């Protein structure tokens, strides 16, 4: 394992110290692993807290700032944060209007955020949660852990963050977050595995011309393995999977996301194929993102997220945002 780290157990805190040093717009509690906006919460604004395992950067810490999150709670690599962290963050961003938790649908994340919500509730802080579960690679059923939360998380955080910035109340902010989740679906493909610093060897093994279709963001497998294919074929596979679940017509927001180790050159090749595919199916991409937004360490691969827009969602997407990883209009 070759990684730019000092030691596996200090990777998250060392990185947080780096985030603190790099971004004067953030306040970082390195020891407790909480990232906050500098200047504290604005009274009357709903606070937005998210978090999850580290290794998905820029998610979530890179999305803390004006128009998006108020706090992020990074856990150890690929391990959800503990309730204590989430509680600290919740307290810090509570400004009288309640707090919305954005939680990706993994048992660990859900349970730890739920515990934190109960503890915060005991302290009189009103907490609402939205569970993001957009990954079509996984069957959604009452009897399983359900679909995983992946790319839609970025969209939910941006759009709910924009509405919170307009001083909407907790019910409205939670509702728009759920609406974005409901209207979004994702599908991911891995060309290579990834290695967590603590484990020191690849989470899974892929052959030299083998890929994993329907990959999750922790290297969890999805639908099946298969041979490597062209960008055009992969776009079709991803969009077929998504189209089986939501319509691909109308105005769409499309994200082509890199898994962390994919050259941007290739992501643009993928975006071109995704865009052609969607055009051919009668959709119109009104907004897009191409880049590394929700990653799996050094994994090579991509994911596609599609969200059906409404005028309101488009307006909130376009609203100013000023975070380390997403910035426009300010």
């Amino acid at each position, binding site marked *: 394992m070759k990684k730019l780290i000092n030691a596996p157990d200090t990777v998250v805190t060392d990185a947080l110290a780096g985030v603190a040093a790099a971004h004067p717009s953030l306040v970082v509690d390195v020891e407790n692993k909480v990232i906050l906006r500098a200047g504290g919460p604005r009274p009357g604004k709903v606070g937005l807290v998210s978090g999850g395992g580290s290794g998905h950067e820029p998610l979530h810490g890179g999305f803390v700032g004006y128009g998006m999150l108020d706090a992020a709670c990074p856990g150890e690599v690929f391990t959800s944060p503990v309730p204590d962290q989430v509680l600290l963050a919740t307290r810090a961003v509570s400004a009288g209007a309640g707090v919305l938790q954005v939680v990706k649908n993994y048992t*660990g994340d859900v349970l*730890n955020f739920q515990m934190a919500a109960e503890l915060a509730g005991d302290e009189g802080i009103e907490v609402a949660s939205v569970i993001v579960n957009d990954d079509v690679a*996984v069957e959604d059923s009452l009897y399983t*852990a359900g679909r995983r939360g992946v790319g839609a998380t970025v969209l939910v955080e941006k759009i709910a963050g924009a509405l919170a910035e307009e001083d909407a109340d907790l019910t409205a902010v939670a509702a728009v977050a759920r609406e974005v989740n409901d209207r979004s679906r994702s599908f991911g493909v891995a060309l290579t595995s990834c290695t967590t610093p*603590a484990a020191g060897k690849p989470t899974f093994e892929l052959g030299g011309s083998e890929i994993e279709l329907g990959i999750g963001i*922790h290297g*969890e497998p999805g639908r099946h393995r298969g041979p490597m294919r062209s960008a055009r074929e992969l776009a079709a596979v991803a969009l077929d999977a998504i189209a089986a679940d939501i319509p691909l017509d109308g105005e769409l927001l499309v994200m082509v996301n890199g898994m962390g180790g994919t050259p941007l050159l290739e992501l643009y090749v993928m975006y071109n194929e995704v865009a052609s595919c969607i055009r051919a199916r009668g959709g119109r991409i009104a907004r897009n993102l191409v880049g590394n937004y929700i990653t799996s360490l050094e994994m090579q691969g991509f994911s596609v997220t599609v969200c059906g827009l409404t005028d309101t969602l488009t307006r909130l997407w376009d609203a100013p945002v000023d975070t380390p990883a997403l910035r426009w209009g300010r």
Partner: protein
Amino acid sequence: MDTAVFRAWIGSAAAVIEANRDHLTQLDAAIGDADHGINLARGFAAVTAALDGADGADGTAGSRPATPGAVLTLTGSTLISTVGGASGPLYGVAFRRAGKALGAAATVDLPLLGEALEAALAGVQQLGAAREGDKTMVDALAPATRAFGKAIGDGAATADALSALAEAAAAGAAATISMQARKGRASYLGPRSVGHEDPGAASTALILTALRDVVAR
């Protein structure tokens, strides 16, 4: 079984988890995200420090828990605060519920321990909604709790009841190999989860076996 036994159990469980850190992580690599051993080892290291009366990470002065119930409750709270992942809250709640079930008792007899196990199982199932057969820690904890209850009902001695507990847990963990996961990360694998032991079931068997071994010593 007095406070010393419970402290020894948790200490021994911590050592066993540390010794099986890589093994548990490898099990999790096969059908999860390769962190179960790492998560639990981190948590049990913190538990060991907490039980030794070390000061809390938040600066609160430490104190050594004085009853079996307090030992388990502190174990659970510490796991919740330090493990993360799915297993953190689940094991945390299990130990906390067990601790609460023991109340303020200075010594624990077999029936009381049986109640604590039932409470732990109920807590895990309430939180995680897994049923037997879903390929989770429940598949070790549930048959172990049942076997322990049956042994008590049959009038078994302490050592035998704890052996029944440990053996049923191990058998339950082994039985997860042929199951298809329906909860937790492994469920994403669908049919491909078959053929691998569930890491949480494996760690549960290790922890319960540690109890038998500590009492047998």
